[in-house]
């Protein structure tokens, strides 16, 4: 049987804009994925704990606060410390062009900015990655 992709969607830091992440959650659900919605105002530590306990394949972070260059590296670090470097990380929200290569160099798999079609996100997540150990 085809196993559904498990993805945690979360917003980290002081950022109350959750319309976008909820639209993405709905689209991924309709594409047959199991979406664990972790909600607003999460700390990087709590997000990583959620990813660990849920045994997720992916983590999707949404940031519209401008704090992405602080919070995203922090999440990536804690993921590594928790022995979860194999979990793919995608980021959405308001991310300036100049920061995109920096974030991908740190290990973010893909950044989806405003205007991204939901089909593109689904297609990206459904492209096979190397199997987790």
């Amino acid at each position: 049987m085809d196993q559904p992709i498990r993805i945690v969607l979360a917003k980290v830091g002081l950022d109350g804009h959750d319309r976008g992440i909820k639209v993405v959650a709905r689209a991924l659900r309709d594409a047959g994925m199991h979406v664990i919605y972790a909600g607003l105002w999460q700390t990087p530590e709590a997000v990583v704990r959620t990813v660990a306990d849920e045994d997720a394949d992916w983590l999707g972070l949404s940031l519209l606060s401008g704090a992405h260059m602080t919070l995203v590296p922090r999440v990536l670090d804690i993921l590594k410390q928790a022995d979860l470097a194999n979990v793919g990380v995608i980021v959405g929200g308001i991310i300036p062009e100049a920061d995109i290569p920096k974030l991908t160099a740190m290990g973010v798999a893909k950044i989806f900015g405003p205007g991204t079609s939901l089909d593109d996100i689904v297609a990206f997540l459904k492209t096979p990655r190397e199997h987790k150990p």
Partner: protein
Amino acid sequence: MIAGLLERLRHGDRNALARLLSITARGEQLADIQSALAIPCEPSPVRGRSPSRVVAFTGSGGVGKSTLIGKLINLVRNLGRKVAVLACDPQSPLSGGALLGDRFRMGSSTDDGVFIRSLAAQTGHGAIADHLDVMIRLLETFGFDAIFLETVGAGQGDVEVRNLADVVVLMLQPESGDDVQWEKAGILECADVIVVHKSDMPTAEQTAAQVRAALDLSMGRSVPVLRVSTKANQGHAELWQAIEALPLRRRPASAALLLFQMAVDTLRQRFENRQQDAELRKLVEAWQRGEVSTASAVETLVRSLES
């Protein structure tokens, strides 16, 4: 791989627990996992602890199951006990997708004594995810003192959890139907504790009174009906006291049921192997012609499968 994961689980590796729960949820290698986890349904002998208390929370969507569980997690942690939650939400029968949105209401934490897992439940599977029994035993082996099960918000006929849980808490809310609702079969009769949640609402006492009146008609069963308000922060300590006052009911009932299910599987296997036997075909033909009564045909069939 399973043996390695189970070894890591016994040494308190959370990532191993998380991975084993995924494997179990997919129904893979169940026999290997089951046989490694002591005798089915026996109290786990891990570190000389008493067995975990498994509490199921059921009730319709929006009644406040996740929110209440979030409150109880804090309460139980303050008593120094470790708690795990298996939270079920519905899976789409069309796409197979699911939006698992319980844990964000339970509060986020990095407390090692709290473990929350979201699970997708298929329609028609009794409002809970498959293989929950094995998952409970994994959590028990890991060392959680309390295990909370959250059913999908179905509300009626969520009886499957009764076999898995020590205590079933049914959650109701004010303004949720007239007194005939409480007379319907399977709703109140499956509960060990009834919570009227959102009891800060003005009609909460009326709902509680209707429920108590309906329960009074069932002789010999005393079920506590408690008013709890998470908004007003009232009634949680009393609820936990009521839950703890109840016996750990799960073991004997579910062990017998498990054995019965295994017996049924064995009989089905034997039947499938013998479908072409002349004896069996003769019996079926005689029954179809009306020469043998149904009752006696069934009896003959059961006896023929005895060995």
